[in-house]
């Protein structure tokens, strides 16, 4: 016989304002099986929890119903309290009389009756609750980090410094990501490469980091603590073990006019190349699309000049399987381009800015390469069209960002700061030049950020014009910028030598495809979604997968680094135990009824359902049934709803429990 204890919470006045909690407690006390019922102002408070714990011991309660807020809010709190008092936590249920009752009703009499019925349902339900033991799964203490930008590098170094192996996978031939492309960084104007390259070298030299560059994630199987990741190592055409990085092949390659993506296609590279001189690893890659050998079968100069014989034209893509326990996703961002209207996307292009046809209209990243000492112009600000120094330069902020009519409503967050930085870099390099900035607002929250922006105006002579630009067009060798100054209320026309657009930050192309491989969710822009916007900002809803950097949303470097370290801390928390504990709300197959149609397997979004053979003692196959791997199951219940013979039950949400609730009404 169950001895159920019911605890009705006032939630301050949130519940008691519209529900007569004392009456509910009295009514519920009369229900069969209920041996104790009371009400309290704040059940979740320390005295409230003690009231619960004491009642369990004094009244010898066997099942608990807490009538309060949503279980999303405090189910964990009360289950922990119940466990502390010596009961299995899954013998405690919450009746939601706040969101489901007091908050949505005004009539106190009716709300009280409804609250009593809600509690009555949970009383009937809790009678059918069973003791559920916590599930433990082993943890593989190795981590995968996807993306070798600053986020991935930081996360990898933090995890590896803790003594755990890290597999770092980068799509490009070198790690470094976008940060390696930057010239200087705000708000201190220190050289990006100077602070970045030592970290890149640390990664290369770290005994606990296994680096895969020019590689992509092919397949992800498994679950938290036990992922199997298949990595595709694209054929580099250069043997990494033999190559000494001397670079002779690159100097001799006859194909010298291939636009270098690292230099935003304004600098040129050879067909056998490293994207930039400080690349890690310093092993070149042959770009097979542009290599004479692959196009015509002739040439092979690089192979001839290579002393160690590292060039291998026959190299094939390789698939490598790595077992890992946790995954940090740090795939970063891409920039919005005004060149085209992306196919099948709600994002509209910028026809009024010439659709990318005006050569001296560049984006912020291209300006970074122009300003960079290692860039194609050796750090001189020169126009891509004729190589002249621009004397009038216009920066336009919020290109794509905060432009609902263009398809993106979010703020890209870093553009105000980097445009301010650009005006300074320009002023430092072109002393007689004038920089103009068209902006909507200056968004500069952050340590020393607003001071930095003020400095660009007050000390570095940038002219900020509040207003947007309606049109850009070429007039001789000038670009006419037509905009408005809304502070003064006049139309502005500037004949500029160069225009820099602060284009929006977007997720990497194909971000959604990786998300589908990983089984993580993403928003309508394809930014990856965190489990909780405020309280779980680095975890994915899929257990064991963590986010770092701009793949989750626009971020600057300090934020990215902080999040990367936070993700690393989450991974280390996971790795701190040999066995992983998880909530036992998982599906279970009643094998006697299962006929092995595997409808459950087909609908399972988590790949938790496996096939299991049942054999007799002689080893003869009796039948093949479904088996739910409790380590993988997320407890969504889709299999339970799909099973035609009702042979799958979700622990904690069994048909028996749900029908008991319905019948209580």
């Amino acid at each position, binding site marked *: 016989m169950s001895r159920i204890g019911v605890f009705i919470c006032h939630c301050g006045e949130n519940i008691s304002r519209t529900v007569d909690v004392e009456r509910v407690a009295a009514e519920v006390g009369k229900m069969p099986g209920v041996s104790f019922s009371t009400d309290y102002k704040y059940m979740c408070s320390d005295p409230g929890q003690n009231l619960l714990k004491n009642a369990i011991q004094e009244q010898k309660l066997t099942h608990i119903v807490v009538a309060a807020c949503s279980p999303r809010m405090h189910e964990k709190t009360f289950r922990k309290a119940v466990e502390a008092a010596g009961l299995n936590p899954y013998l405690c249920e919450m009746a939601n009389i706040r969101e489901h009752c007091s908050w949505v009703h005004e009539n106190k009499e009716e709300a009280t009756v409804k609250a009593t019925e809600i509690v009555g349902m949970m009383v009937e339900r809790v009678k059918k609750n069973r003791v559920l033991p916590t599930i433990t799964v082993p943890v593989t203490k190795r981590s995968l980090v996807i993306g070798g930008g600053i986020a991935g590098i930081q996360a990898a170094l933090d995890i590896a410094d803790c003594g755990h192996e890290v597999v770092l996978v980068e799509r490009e031939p070198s790690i470094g990501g976008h940060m390696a492309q930057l010239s200087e960084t705000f708000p201190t104007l220190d050289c990006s490469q100077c602070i970045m390259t030592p970290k890149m070298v640390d990664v290369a030299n770290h005994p606990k980091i296994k680096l895969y560059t020019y590689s992509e994630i092919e397949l992800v199987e498994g679950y938290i603590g036990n992922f199997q990741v298949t990595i595709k190592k694209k054929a580099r055409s250069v043997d990494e073990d033999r190559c000494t990085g001397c670079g002779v092949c690159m100097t001799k390659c006859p194909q010298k006019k291939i636009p270098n993506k690292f230099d935003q296609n304004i600098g040129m590279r050879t067909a056998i190349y490293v994207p930039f001189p400080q690349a890690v690893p310093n092993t070149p890659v042959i770009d097979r699309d542009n290599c004479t050998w692959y196009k015509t079968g002739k040439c092979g100069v690089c192979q001839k000049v290579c002393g160690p014989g590292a060039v291998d034209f026959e190299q094939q893509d390789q698939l490598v399987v790595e077992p890992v326990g946790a995954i940090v996703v740090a795939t970063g961002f891409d920039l919005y381009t005004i060149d085209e209207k992306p196919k099948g996307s709600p994002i509209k292009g910028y026809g009024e800015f010439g659709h990318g046809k005006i050569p001296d209209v560049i984006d912020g990243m291209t300006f970074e390469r122009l300003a960079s000492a290692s860039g194609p112009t050796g750090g001189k600000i020169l126009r891509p069209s004729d190589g002249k120094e621009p004397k009038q330069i216009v920066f336009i902020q919020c290109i794509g960002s905060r432009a609902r009519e263009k398809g993106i409503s979010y703020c890209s967050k870093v553009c105000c700061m980097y445009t301010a930085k650009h005006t300074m870099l320009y002023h430092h390099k072109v002393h007689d030049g004038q920089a103009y900035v068209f902006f909507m607002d200056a968004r500069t929250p952050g340590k020393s950020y607003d001071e930095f922006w003020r400095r660009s105006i007050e000390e570095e002579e940038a002219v900020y014009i509040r207003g947007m630009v309606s049109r850009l067009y070429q007039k001789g060798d000038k670009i006419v910028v037509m905009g408005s100054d809304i502070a003064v209320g006049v139309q502005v026309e500037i004949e500029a030598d160069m225009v820099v657009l602060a284009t929006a930050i977007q997720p990497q192309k194909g971000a959604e495809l990786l998300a589908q491989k990983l089984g993580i969710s993403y928003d309508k822009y394809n930014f990856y979604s965190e489990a909780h916007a405020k309280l779980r900002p680095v975890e994915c809803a899929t257990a064991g997968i963590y986010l770092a950097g701009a793949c989750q949303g626009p971020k600057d470097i300090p934020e990215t680094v902080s999040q990367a370290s936070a993700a690393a801390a989450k991974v280390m928390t996971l790795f701190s135990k040999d066995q992983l504990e998880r909530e036992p709300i998982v599906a279970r197959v009643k094998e*006697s*009824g299962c*006929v*092995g*149609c*595997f*409808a459950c397997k*087909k*609908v399972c979004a988590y790949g938790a359902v496996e096939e299991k053979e049942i054999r007799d003692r002689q080893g003869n196959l009796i039948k*093949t049934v479904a088996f739910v791997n409790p380590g993988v199951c997320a407890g969504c219940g889709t299999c339970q709803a*799909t099973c*035609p*013979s*009702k*042979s799958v039950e979700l622990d904690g949400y069994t*048909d*028996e429990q749900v*029908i*008991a609730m319905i019948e209580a009404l």
Partner: protein
Amino acid sequence: MTQPIDTSIYAAITEAIQAEAHRILAEGEVTAIVGYAAARRKGSAQPIIITDAADSVKLIFTPACVNNLAVYLTKAKKDIPKNGKIGIVVKGCDLKALSGLMGESQLKREELYLIGVPCAGVLASTVCPDQELTGDSIAPKCTECDAHLPTGCDFVPAETLVTPELERKYAVEIARLEALTPAERWVYWKEQFAKCIKCYACRQVCPFCFCEQCLCDRNKPQMVDTTPRPAGNTAWHIVRAMHLAGRCAGCAECERVCPMDIPLNLLNRKMAKELKELYNHEAGFEVLDKGPLNMFTEKDDQSFIK
């Protein structure tokens, strides 16, 4: 007006089935064959399982070969040898059920030897089996058949079929019911379900009702009232129709065996029509990994979300 249907090739088909059955049994390609044999009454037919090549002369194909033999491979398989390939005689409609069962992991294609039958139609009722097949006596399902000639079988007699265009009996009836108001339709189905005596013959004969324990027989918790009363009857028939949606291939065995003449296949056809309209799905000869209701695509109709 009675429209005659040419079944003259059935004799040649019978001979071809017998010859092929003899060969595969004698050569040991299969261990047993599920087919049709003559029953005691003149013109009647019944399922038979043969394991001896000498028995292959017993096999026939006539308009009285109404049964869907697929059930003999799943829940009624006690007389089927456990080892080796099994041969089975299939009409187009039966083959669709087999394809469905393969998609649901109940059968494996490589364990079957399919003897397909070009079929112009079978009788609606075997009460008087010794009668000519006509537009009146033909099973309603055969008036809408799009699978007279099964494909993908291991053997099909090379006979040419003549299949006259007939009035599509279910389509006509569905159109009639769709024209009614929801209240009128409810009255119609309530009357139909009220007749049910819960004999579960429909369940017994359905190739897709292969559960070892039907959820309607479970009592902890009791999902469906088991006594033949209106609420339980309606619940049973809704469960049956819903569970067959996207799977039922229209062999109409449920309707044939129903002692109370409930138009069960009418409900199945309506569900099939919905599936066709919503997901462009039709049960066919193709073995599908996932049925239309077991998957989600972004293109799926979501107009039901209001």
